[in-house]
C-alpha cells in the first residue's frame, strides 16, 4: 500500500471521529495499519510508524491533536488522537480573487529552488483546491530567490519550534569566530543578504547575524523560549532601514561607466551638485566589496574608513593576482 494511502486514511479517520481515537483503535482499524496489526503480539514497529506519520501529517499544517481523557493520565489508554475540523479547514470567509491567485502563484514561484520549495508547492495545491483560476500576468515573470546558506533551514525550523540555537559567528571585522546562543525572532532578507534577527542570550539584546557569517553548523537546543510578537519582525526591518538611511558615502563615478549607470539606479542614490553620488549602505564591509568590484570606475571620497577599506581591498586583489 502506498504511503500516501495510509496517511490519507489516517487523516480521514481522525477528521471523522468526533471524540478521537486511541492509538490501539488507530492501529487495529485504520487502512494501512490494520493489515499489519497483530492482535496479541508486538506492534512496536507499527507504533513507530504511527509516530513518524503523525509528524509528516503535522508538517502539512494538519492540526493532529493529542487529548488526554479520564483521571488516570499519562497512560496510553487514555490518550486519544483527533483532528478538530475547525482548525483543519480553511475558514469559510477566506477566498482569493483571480488577481490574488495570480500574485500568490508568483510568490510561490519565488521559492522554486531550495529550502522553501516544498512549502510553496504544497501551498499552491491547497490554493488550487479552491478552484480559482488565475489570470495570466500580461508578461511572464520568473522570479527566483535563492537561499544559499546552509544555516537557513535549521534556523527556520528552530523559529517554528521556538527553541534556542547555537552557532559560531564570525563578526565582520573580527579575526576569530565566537559561539553565540540565540533566540530566533525572524529570518530577514535585507539588501540582498539573509540575516537572523534574534535575541543574543549572552549579550541580553537583539542582534542581526548575517547567515553567511555563521561559520559552524547550527545546533538546535531543546530549550524553549517565549515566542516574540509578530511586530518584532516589522521593528527589526524598520531598524535595519534606519541604519541604511543613516549610513551614507560620497562616491565619485567615472562618467558614462558601468558604475555610473548602476550606482545611479541604486535605491536612495542622490546626485550632488559636483556630480558625485551620495549612496546609502547597511554594512560597511559588504558595501566596500561592492564598490571595489567597480575598480577604477568608482572612488569613495568619504567616509575615510570606507575609503581605506575599498583601497585595501583593491591592493589585496592586485597583490593576489600579481
Amino acid at each position, binding site marked *: 500500500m*502506498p504511503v*500516501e494511502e495510509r*496517511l490519507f*486514511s489516517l*487523516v*480521514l*479517520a481522525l*477528521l*471523522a471521529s468526533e471524540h478521537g481515537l486511541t492509538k490501539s483503535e488507530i492501529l487495529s482499524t485504520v487502512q494501512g495499519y490494520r493489515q499489519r496489526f497483530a492482535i496479541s503480539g508486538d506492534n512496536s514497529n507499527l507504533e513507530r510508524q504511527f509516530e513518524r506519520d503523525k509528524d*509528516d501529517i503535522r508538517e*502539512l*499544517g494538519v492540526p493532529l491533536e493529542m487529548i488526554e481523557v479520564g483521571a488516570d493520565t499519562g497512560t496510553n489508554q487514555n490518550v486519544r488522537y483527533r483532528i478538530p475540523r475547525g482548525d*483543519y479547514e*480553511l475558514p*469559510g470567509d*477566506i477566498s*482569493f480573487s483571480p488577481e490574488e491567485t495570480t*500574485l500568490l502563484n*508568483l510568490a*510561490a514561484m519565488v521559492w522554486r529552488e531550495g529550502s*522553501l520549495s*516544498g*512549502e*510553496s*508547492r*504544497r*501551498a499552491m*495545491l*491547497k490554493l488550487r*483546491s479552491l*478552484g480559482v483560476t488565475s489570470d495570466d500576468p500580461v*508578461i*511572464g*515573470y*520568473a*522570479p*527566483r530567490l535563492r537561499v544559499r546558506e546552509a544555516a537557513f533551514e535549521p534556523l527556520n525550523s528552530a523559529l517554528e519550534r521556538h527553541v534556542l540555537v547555537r552557532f559560531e559567528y564570525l563578526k565582520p571585522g573580527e579575526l576569530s569566530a565566537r559561539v553565540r546562543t540565540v533566540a530566533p525572532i525572524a*529570518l*530577514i532578507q535585507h*539588501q540582498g543578504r539573509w540575516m537572523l534577527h534574534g535575541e543574543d542570550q549572552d549579550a541580553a539584546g537583539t542582534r542581526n547575524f548575517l547567515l*553567511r557569517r555563521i561559520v559552524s553548523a547550527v545546533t538546535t537546543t531543546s530549550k524553549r523560549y517565549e515566542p516574540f510578537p509578530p511586530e*518584532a*519582525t516589522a521593528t527589526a*526591518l524598520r531598524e535595519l532601514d534606519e541604519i541604511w538611511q543613516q549610513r551614507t558615502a560620497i562616491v565619485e563615478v567615472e562618467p*558614462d*561607466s558601468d558604475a555610473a549607470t*548602476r550606482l545611479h539606479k541604486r*535605491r536612495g542614490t542622490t546626485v550632488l551638485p559636483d556630480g558625485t553620488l551620495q549612496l546609502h549602505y547597511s554594512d560597511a564591509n559588504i558595501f566596500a*566589496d*561592492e564598490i*571595489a568590484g567597480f*575598480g*577604477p570606475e568608482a572612488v569613495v571620497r568619504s567616509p575615510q574608513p570606507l575609503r581605506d577599506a575599498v583601497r585595501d*581591498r*583593491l591592493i*589585496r*586583489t*592586485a597583490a*593576489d*593576482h600579481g
Partner: protein
Amino acid sequence: MASRKKPVLMAQDKLAFLLSLVPYLMDHDRVSVAEVATHFGMTPEQIREAVRLIGVSGIPGETQSYQHEDLFDISWDDLEENDQIVLTHRVAIDDSPRFSAREAAALIAGLQYLSALPENSDRTAIATLMAKLSRGASGAPNQVAVESTESDATLGLIRQSVTTGVQIEFDYRGARGKTERRHVDPLRVESMDADWYLRGWDHLRGAVRTFRLDRISNPAITSEPIAFAAKDVSLPEMLFEGSKSDLLVTIEVEASAASLLADYVTEGAVTTHANGRVRTTIRVSHYHGLKRLLASMPGVATVIEPPEARRAVAEWAEAGAARYR
C-alpha cells in the same frame, strides 16, 4: 508563463494533493481529467491515480470495517471510459485544508520580495492578502521577511510595452563597456535574488538577449509594433547559458564562499579542496565580467590560470587602487 517540468511528488506532497483535490471535486459535479491536470499543474496520469485512490478510501466507520457507505465513491465508468471525474459519495472532508505556518510564511515572504512588480503596486491589497494568508494558516506564520522595494519604473514600462504590443527602447551598457540604444520585444522578466533581468527579442542583434535592469537607462516606449510575443519564442529555462566561445578560468575560493560562484562553475569541473579553499573551473564570456566579479570578492577568490585572466583582474584592481594615491 515559462514551461516547467511536472513535479515529482513525495508522499507528503501526494497527501496534500489528495486533501486539496477532494474539495475541488466536490465543487465540480463533472470535470475532465485533462481540466483537473491543467488546473493543478500535473499530468493526467497523476490525476487518475489520485482519483482511483480517493475512490477506494474512507473511514473505518461504526463497524470499524470500511463498509460501502463509509467510503468515497466515484463514477468508475465515467473515469475509465470518458476520462471524466464524478464524485458520487464523500466522507470526512468538507472543505479545503488550511496552509501550514511555514507555507503561509513562504507565500508572505514571496509577496514581499515581489513588491517591485507593477502588479504589486496596490500596497493595501497586498496587506489584505497577507492578512488572509496568516488567518488561513494552522499556526502563526514563521517570521520570514524580505525587505520591500519601491515599484520599479522600468518594470512598469516593460509591462506597458507588452500590453500595448509596441517595442521598448533603452540605452544599454554591456559588461564590455559599450553603450548602445536597443529596441526590444519583452518576453519575460526574471530575477535572481536582488538582480532583475529582462529577456527579450533584441532587434539590434536579431536574437534573444538578457538585459540587467540596473544597466538599462533612458527607457522609453516606441511606436514600433513588436515582432515577437512571449508565446512565439521558447526561452531556455536557464538564465545564463554557456556558449562555445566561453573562456575557462581556474579559480581558488574560500570554501564558505564557493556557493557564490556556483552559477559560473562548468559542468563536470574537477573540484579539489585544500586548506579551506576550493579549486575549480568557471566559465565566463569575457574577462570584463570576471575582473569585476573577482574584485568584489577581495581575499576570498583568486584566479589561478590562465595568466591573461590573472592579469586582467590585477590590472583592474591596480587601476582602482591607483585612484586612491
